[in-house]
């Protein structure tokens, strides 16, 4: 007993200190990520880069590209949408009022809060207009007010759809409008009980008849009980006219952004996977979403790797779980996805998907905190992700955290919402000017070195 007493306190401290560290050699991106052993440490690794201003600095772009802020002083910008006339809409808000069920929720909430902007969510949509086409915002104004943590945005046939955290609303839009009054017409309610993962990502089918809404799980791995997981960790298909919904895919833990690819017109999602199985489990992923598919949550991950934390086990469901297409890395917290069309940003960023990574808190070595580009060929991911926008972390502080990404095909540029510096960033090829400029000119200096390196390696 005496020995026990002397051991108890130092043991606790020692346990806190000895966390499993990440193995940098593990390749966790691409079609076949390497998955280490499960390790749900007694004290999970947590590293919260606290916010810090940019000063005069900017995020880092590859050579041949420029980055600029086109909107500042926003209130938690999440997702963006480009209207037919080129105006940019920014959904601002922070939702989720999940009750604290355990002492852990209180402590973890307090810790995670340190990594966030202190600004209160705007619950509004802001409009950005560039009147003279110089890439700078001439008008920044509140477009719609009085929303409830708006996140997903879609525009179909003169109607703007906004996915609040609790319902889907529509607004009639007149070309050139700079504000819309009212809080919209409700198309359908969305699952909102608890709202542990509150974001309602949205996209419209290419023919405009259906809307797809991502509804995240109500827990990490079912620890609030499976009763509250009804209609959670799913993607809903909603009929735009009637508001009727059905589950399109399930077991998809937290689908935080949706987009249709322009090549095969398939629905894709970026999905945040579960925490507390170790710093390198489970990789977040980008996947095409098959109708009726089950992606494993909470019973298994990355196909049929069983998660023992959920009881009773469901081997019948695990058997059905399918493997996602493309891993993005563990705990990168992908919150944005959009596809290129018409040559994208040129060079290495010509054909593929942009992915905004909010960044980890559940591992000691930060991951994410950047925007990457996943190259595609023939409508499938092809090759390693390429960094597009980095430099968000500096000296252990987060100067920004990327969320939604939107490719503006008309201008050939990319917009990135950043909910820590409350900014919208614009990344463009250098000397791009109007769209008619031949893009090949920009590509040459970027492409050459990478091509020669590849040849050498092969």
């Amino acid at each position, binding site marked *: 007993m005496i020995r026990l007493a002397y051991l108890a306190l130092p043991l606790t401290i020692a346990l806190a200190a000895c966390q499993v560290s990440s193995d940098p050699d593990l390749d966790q991106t691409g079609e076949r990520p390497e998955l280490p052993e499960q390790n749900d440490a007694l004290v999970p690794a947590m590293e919260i880069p606290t916010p810090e201003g940019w000063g005069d600095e900017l995020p880092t772009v590859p050579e041949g590209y420029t980055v600029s802020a086109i909107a500042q002083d926003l209130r938690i910008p999440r997702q963006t949408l480009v209207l037919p006339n080129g105006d940019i809409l920014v959904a601002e808000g922070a939702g989720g009022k999940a009750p604290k069920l355990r002492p852990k929720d209180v402590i973890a909430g307090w810790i995670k809060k340190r990594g966030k902007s202190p600004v209160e969510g705007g619950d509004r949509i802001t409009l950005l207009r560039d009147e003279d086409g110089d890439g700078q915002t001439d008008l920044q104004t509140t477009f719609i007010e009085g929303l409830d943590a708006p996140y997903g945005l879609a525009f179909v046939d003169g109607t703007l759809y906004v996915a609040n955290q609790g319902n889907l609303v529509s607004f009639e839009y007149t070309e050139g409008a700079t504000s819309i009054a009212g809080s919209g017409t409700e198309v359908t309610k969305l699952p909102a009980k608890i709202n542990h993962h509150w974001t309602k990502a949205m996209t419209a089918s290419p023919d405009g008849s259906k809307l797809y809404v991502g509804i995240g799980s109500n*827990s990490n791995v079912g620890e609030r*009980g499976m009763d509250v997981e009804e209609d959670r960790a799913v993607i809903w298909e909603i009929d735009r006219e009637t508001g009727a919904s059905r589950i399109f895919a399930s077991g998809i833990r937290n689908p935080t952004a949706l987009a249709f690819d322009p090549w095969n017109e398939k629905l894709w999602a970026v999905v945040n996977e579960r925490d507390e199985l170790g710093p390198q489990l489970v990789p977040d992923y980008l996947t095409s979403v098959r109708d009726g598919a089950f992606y494993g949550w909470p019973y298994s991950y990355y196909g049929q790797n069983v998660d023992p934390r959920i009881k009773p086990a469901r081997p019948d469901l695990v058997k059905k779980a399918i493997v996602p297409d493309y891993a993005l890395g563990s705990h990168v917290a992908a919150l944005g996805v959009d596809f290129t069309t018409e040559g994208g940003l040129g060079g290495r960023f010509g054909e593929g998907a942009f992915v905004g990574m909010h960044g980890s808190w559940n591992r000691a070595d930060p991951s994410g905190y950047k925007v990457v580009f996943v190259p595609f060929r023939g409508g499938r991911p092809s090759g390693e992700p390429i960094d597009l926008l980095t430099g968000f972390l500096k000296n252990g502080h987060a100067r920004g955290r990327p969320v939604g990404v939107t490719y503006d095909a008309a201008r050939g540029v990319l917009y990135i919402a950043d909910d820590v510096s409350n900014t919208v960033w614009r990344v463009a090829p250098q000397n791009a000017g109007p769209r008619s400029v031949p893009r090949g000119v920009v590509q040459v200096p970027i492409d050459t070195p990478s091509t020669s390196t590849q040849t050498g390696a092969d």
Partner: protein
Amino acid sequence: MDRTVTNSRSFANPLHAILLAFPVALYPSALLTDITYLNTAEIQWTNFSSWLIAGADLFAGLVLAWALLGLFFGRARHSKSRSMLYLIVVAAMFGLGVLNSFQHARDGWHSVGTLGLVLSILCSILALIAAFIAYSTIAAEKRA
């Protein structure tokens, strides 16, 4: 031989006794909710355990502080060895209790497991031992 008890008082003063009452009640309660969770896989039981252990830890910490102060600054109204034993038991109870809090912060089925159950049993036993030491009467005897 006549024995007259001239001075009888408890080891712990009343406030200290009240603080100790919490771990004595809460750790065994957590043990029961742990057992229920393991039998039912009904998630709410492990939530109960988490809060019960957190509450027990809080008061165990206060009791530990009291025991430490008592050891160093207490009036020599009872034997040093008994104070030492009490301190050791309380320290072990608190340390294992905190460990158990971390264990119960894991998600789902891993929140209890063998480790959680063993820790809950140990904390319950230690709380009862501490209570035996603290609540038994010290009788200073005087031979007539």
